[in-house]
């Protein structure tokens, strides 16, 4: 086609687009929506990437460099952009971990002198204290955690590190700046004051600031030397380690000199890393970086980037496929409705390429409009939503970045998407016999048989690739590639499936028969719609299946620490070493024991007061072997239940040590599970299962869920209640006692003991064995940590829990309150529901588009039906069935297609698992594929029903009865 022919085609297309406004708007919207998304994502991504200047300013403000002390005096090697994780201290983690003599002498010299030697002459230093830990500080409501940093924000060198939002820089003693993140969470504001826990000095907040790269930071920034000193003084009471003076500095060189790579390396020789503005802007070549010579770069980051870009490309690709599938039928119907006009073009001397040109011209006009609108809207959306986006990501944009090349690319993708959607309709329109089109006789051609055959082959190949190609190498990409290929194969098969439906329609009642036959005869519009439904449902089914499988695996692995709703309080233990004053006649150990008991009693009372209605309390103590309190003759040790060898699952007997496990191959593991009663699937155990505890009936009930008179009798009789019968042999439980350091340093003395025991089944195996306090004392075991367990009728509410936790925390560190709430899914039902709803929306949209197009197509048939005597509801019913037919076929195919990626990913996850056996039993390590039946049923059965209702509800029942027939 020559240029003027294209011009004519575009003119016709433009007029057509204006004539069929509804359809045009629909296509434009379909093209524009993904373009908006991609454009916005691109602009956000580009804007979030900082220039070297911008990232340097966030780190060092107006200074030339940021210096950190890693190991004063020791040589090290750093990357041009220093990263603590990769920094190599040569004499520590290098080949020879011995400091040189020079390093030894240097490390003994004061920091100030080292700095002077390490830095160019005349360098000005501004100290920065940025300890990583958190302290507690007072708020309007109570206490909140906060990072206590120090830096003279008023100094010009610090400008740009933070942004002043309100107030003025601190300039008097004990004035601080607070981050907006901290102020929002604590309820404090500029002008208020706060006191760090353990100190008495009120800190006046004079400024609200934000770190542009870390908007969520909860931080107080004080003047140099103030906050660190306060916390250091309070160290004993808060348990925080104070910073050893400032270790980081902003460095400014005189006369605008740049901090070059040689200067950085010199500072490295003294144990400092330096992030230099000049080096960041113009990094040295890799061969000039000693670190890169000495440690080969790991490819992990590159792989991760590749993985996420693969996912992004796949998601965008599938979205565009959806658009092609949704817009295709609209173009097909457009071509059909203007069949007569196209035939006139042909009659007037146009050949097939001209006809194709007119249809494709329509695509260019509509897709161009849609893509342009989408790009502009995408940029606008980011510009308008910038504050929200920044707050969400937790960092300010470096600048608002519009990359012309990117935007043109997105624009082109939009136009190409539209063109792709119009190709099949254009080719079909070109093939239309002119006379048939002019006389209005429809010519339907049977579909070429090679298309579905090729589709089945492609689908099979993709499935194989996803399921079995995933054995090695970059798995995610192979799974995704295979799944996408399989889906494309199914898309190619949909016309055949639709045709098949038309053939089975014979036996159906009139409404569905008409709908299915109509779909089969008009594959041009029904097949893409079915494919679109399929793609949406397949995506949802894949994610839902994978999520429900992961959820089931997590649920299976979850171990409750107590019965559901139980409240567990662990008290702090006062160490005899911390006892400073001892009254005459008593020992530090007895003072500590009394203090521990008092603290436990106080805490119990606190909880009982904070949460009313907790019910009966069970008090327990953990048992150990040896008092370990520093008194003469005391020793430290442990006690452990010793499973008799004959009760162990045989391979576990070969395990190295009590906690050890043995690898099994899967067949062996399954055979043992099936045949040997001693080998059972290992139940998930709580992370800190108690070995041996003292307790009473309340403990048995509240902690272990045991309500068995036999257990109470056993306790009363001084026997041990054991919660795994395999530990009991001949009515007794063997114990293994370990005494640390009994035979010189490093040597442990092992001995065994045996106590009469009864085995009882526990609902929650939070302890291995229980005995009465008296029996424990008789057995020579030492009670240690105090714990209490309540089992209220209902788990306490979140507010009660918070209040109680605050009250417990107020008693000091070491005490811990927890409420067992059972397994909480991290894959919230809301997410899964949202996904199902989104997929349903796309599916209904696709089916609806196909139905709307079918309705405009079959106006004549409806009039005939009315003339023959169909009631007023026929149009509505027909629309309903047409919509339901598309939705049903698409949903069924989609459910099938969605299993491929889910099964493949699950398979990949299971590949790494190795069955193991230990004293607890056998764990296979694999997790089954769990089918989310309710969602699947909702999609496969509910979608057609919903489609029927929507289409029937939105269709006007009125049919134009009269028509000129002459």
């Amino acid at each position, binding site marked *: 086609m020559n240029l003027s022919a294209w011009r004519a085609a575009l003119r016709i297309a433009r007029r057509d687009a204006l004539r069929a406004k509804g359809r045009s708007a629909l296509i434009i919207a379909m093209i524009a929506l993904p373009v908006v998304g991609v454009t916005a994502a691109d602009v956000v991504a580009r804007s979030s990437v900082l220039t070297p200047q911008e990232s340097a300013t966030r780190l060092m403000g107006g200074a030339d460099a940021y210096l950190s002390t890693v190991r004063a005096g020791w040589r090290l090697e750093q990357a041009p952009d220093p990263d603590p994780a990769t920094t190599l201290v040569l004499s520590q983690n290098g080949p020879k971990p011995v400091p040189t003599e020079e390093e030894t002498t240097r490390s003994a010299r004061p920091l100030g002198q080292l700095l002077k030697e390490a830095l160019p002459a005349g360098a000005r230093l501004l100290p920065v204290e940025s300890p990583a830990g958190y302290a507690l500080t007072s708020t309007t409501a109570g206490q909140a955690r906060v990072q206590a940093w120090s830096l003279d924000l008023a100094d010009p060198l610090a400008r740009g590190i933070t942004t002043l939002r309100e107030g003025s820089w601190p300039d008097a003693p004990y004035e601080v700046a607070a981050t907006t993140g901290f102020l929002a969470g604590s309820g404090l504001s500029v002008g208020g004051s706060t006191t760090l826990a353990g100190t008495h000095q009120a800190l006046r907040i004079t400024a609200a600031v934000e770190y542009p790269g870390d908007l969520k930071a909860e931080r107080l920034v004080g003047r140099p030397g103030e906050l660190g000193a306060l916390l250091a003084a309070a160290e004993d009471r808060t348990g925080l380690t104070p910073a050893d003076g400032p270790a980081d500095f902003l460095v400014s060189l005189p006369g605008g000199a740049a901090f070059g790579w040689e200067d950085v390396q010199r500072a490295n020789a003294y144990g400092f890393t330096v992030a230099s503005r000049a080096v960041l802007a113009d990094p040295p070549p890799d061969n000039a970086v000693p670190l890169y010579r000495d440690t080969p770069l790991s490819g992990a980051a590159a792989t991760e980037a590749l993985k996420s870009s693969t996912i992004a490309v796949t998601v965008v690709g599938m979205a565009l496929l959806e658009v092609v599938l949704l817009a295709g039928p609209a173009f097909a119907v457009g071509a059909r409705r203007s069949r007569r006009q196209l035939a006139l073009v042909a009659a007037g001397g146009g050949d097939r390429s001209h006809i194709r040109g007119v249809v494709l011209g329509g695509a260019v006009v509509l897709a161009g409009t849609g893509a342009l609108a989408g790009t502009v809207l995408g940029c606008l959306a980011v510009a308008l939503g910038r504050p929200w986006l920044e707050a969400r990501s937790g960092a300010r944009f470096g600048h608002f970045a519009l990359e012309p090349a990117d935007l043109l690319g997105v624009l082109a993708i939009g136009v190409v998407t539209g063109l792709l959607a119009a190709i099949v309709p254009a080719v079909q329109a070109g093939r239309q016999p002119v006379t048939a089109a002019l006389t209005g006789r429809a010519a339907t051609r049977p579909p070429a048989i090679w298309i579905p055959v090729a589709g089945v082959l492609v689908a099979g190949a993709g499935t194989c690739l996803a399921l079995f190609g995933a054995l090695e190498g970059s798995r995610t990409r192979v799974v995704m590639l295979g799944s996408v290929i399989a889906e494309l194969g199914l898309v190619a098969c949909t016309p055949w499936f639709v045709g098949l439906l038309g053939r089975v329609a014979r036996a159906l009642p009139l409404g569905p028969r008409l709908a299915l036959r109509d779909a089969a005869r008009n594959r041009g519009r029904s097949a893409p719609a079915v494919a679109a439904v399929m793609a949406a449902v397949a995506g949802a089914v894949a994610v839902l299946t994978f999520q429900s499988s992961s959820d089931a695996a997590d649920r299976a692995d979850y171990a409750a620490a107590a019965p559901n709703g139980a409240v567990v309080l662990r008290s702090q233990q006062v160490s005899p070493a911390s006892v400073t004053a001892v009254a005459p006649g008593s020992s530090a150990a007895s003072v500590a024991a009394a203090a521990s008991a008092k603290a436990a009693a106080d805490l119990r009372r606190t909880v009982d007061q904070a949460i009313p209605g907790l019910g009966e309390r069970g008090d327990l103590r953990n048992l150990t072997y040896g008092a370990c309190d520093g008194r003469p003759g005391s020793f430290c040790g442990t006690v452990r239940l010793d499973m008799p060898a004959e009760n162990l699952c045989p391979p576990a007997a070969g395990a190295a040590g009590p906690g050890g496990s043995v690898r099994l191959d899967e067949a062996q593991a399954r055979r043992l599970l099936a045949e040997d009663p001693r080998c059972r699937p290992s139940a998930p155990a709580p992370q800190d299962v108690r070995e041996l505890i003292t307790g009473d009936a309340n403990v048995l009930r509240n902690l272990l869920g045991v309500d068995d008179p036999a257990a109470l009798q056993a306790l009363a009789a001084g026997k041990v209640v054991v919660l795994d019968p395999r530990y009991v042999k001949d009515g007794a439980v063997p114990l293994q006692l370990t005494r640390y350091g009994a035979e010189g340093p490093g040597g442990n003395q092992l001995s065994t003991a045996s106590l009469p025991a009864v085995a009882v089944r526990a609902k929650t195996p939070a302890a291995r064995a229980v005995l009465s306090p008296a029996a424990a004392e008789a057995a020579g075991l030492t009670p240690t940590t105090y714990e209490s367990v309540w089992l209220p009728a209902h788990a306490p509410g979140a507010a009660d829990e918070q209040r109680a936790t605050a009250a417990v925390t107020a008693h000091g560190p070491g005490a811990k309150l927890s409420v067992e709430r059972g397994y909480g899914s991290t894959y919230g039902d809301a997410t899964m529901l949202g996904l199902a709803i989104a997929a349903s929306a796309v599916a209904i949209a696709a089916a609806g588009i196909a139905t709307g197009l079918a309705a405009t197509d079959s106006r004549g048939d409806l009039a*005939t039906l009315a003339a*023959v*005597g169909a009631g007023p509801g*026929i149009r509505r019913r027909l629309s309903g069935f047409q919509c339901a037919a598309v939705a049903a076929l698409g949903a069924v195919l989609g459910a099938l297609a969605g299993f491929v990626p889910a099964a493949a990913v699950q398979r990949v996850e299971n590949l790494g698992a190795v069955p193991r056996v230990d004293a607890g039993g056998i764990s296979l390590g694999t997790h089954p594929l769990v089918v989310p039946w309710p969602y699947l049923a909702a999609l496969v059965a509910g979608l057609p029903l919903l489609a029927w209702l929507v289409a029937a509800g939105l269709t006007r029942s009125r049919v134009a*009865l009269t028509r000129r027939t*002459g």
Partner: protein
Amino acid sequence: MTSTTTTRKRAPGQRAVLQLRGLTRTHGQGGARVHALRGVDLTVLPGEFVAVMGPSGSGKSTLLGLAGGLDSATSGEVLVEGQGLGGLSRSALSAVRRRAIGYVFQDFNLIPTLTAAENVSLPRELDGAPGRRTRGEAQAALAEVGIADLADRFPDQLSGGQQQRVAIARALIGDRRLVLADEPTGALDSATGEGVLTVLRARCDAGAAAVVVTHDPRHAEWADRVVLLRDGQVVEERAGSGGAPAAGTGSRC
């Protein structure tokens, strides 16, 4: 208006299949007002073949639309099998069309997605008759119009004449005995058209009534009665020959 002409099979006192009384229909408002029909009376008895003729715009198609309940009259009355259509709801009108009236259009208007047999049984299916019975009825109706062997073909696999025979079979399936045909031969060559009229004539001879709009005088010769419309009024009513026209004017198919 003259009284109806007596025909061969007409017995006195027989109930009319279709009665039009003082039928008027105006389209549009004010200056754009068009009087399509101005007081038409017509009675059609069982077994009668009535041809309605007239120039373009004389109101032929409007008359057919009103008679079939597709359109409603501005004034006057339409009675089908003695029942007035005036006060009926839309669904009741549909039921009348299913059970009492059959339409035949110039361009056949078969549903392209249904086979010949399914098109014929369509009114019965819409009426809720069981599938097996309607299939038998459709087969019989197709046999009556001479195309029993084409039952499973789709409309686009049939010739024009065959399609029109399917349409006639559809118009007469069940208990219906009123066929309203609007230029049924208009899209057919003359030989095929003759064949279609032969079928219609045969159905009338078997007891049905037909009102056929045509502008071909040769086709009117098939009628028992010819009604001439002009400007929405019946200007002439005469007896037709009630059978095939004289040799030479057309050939039988």
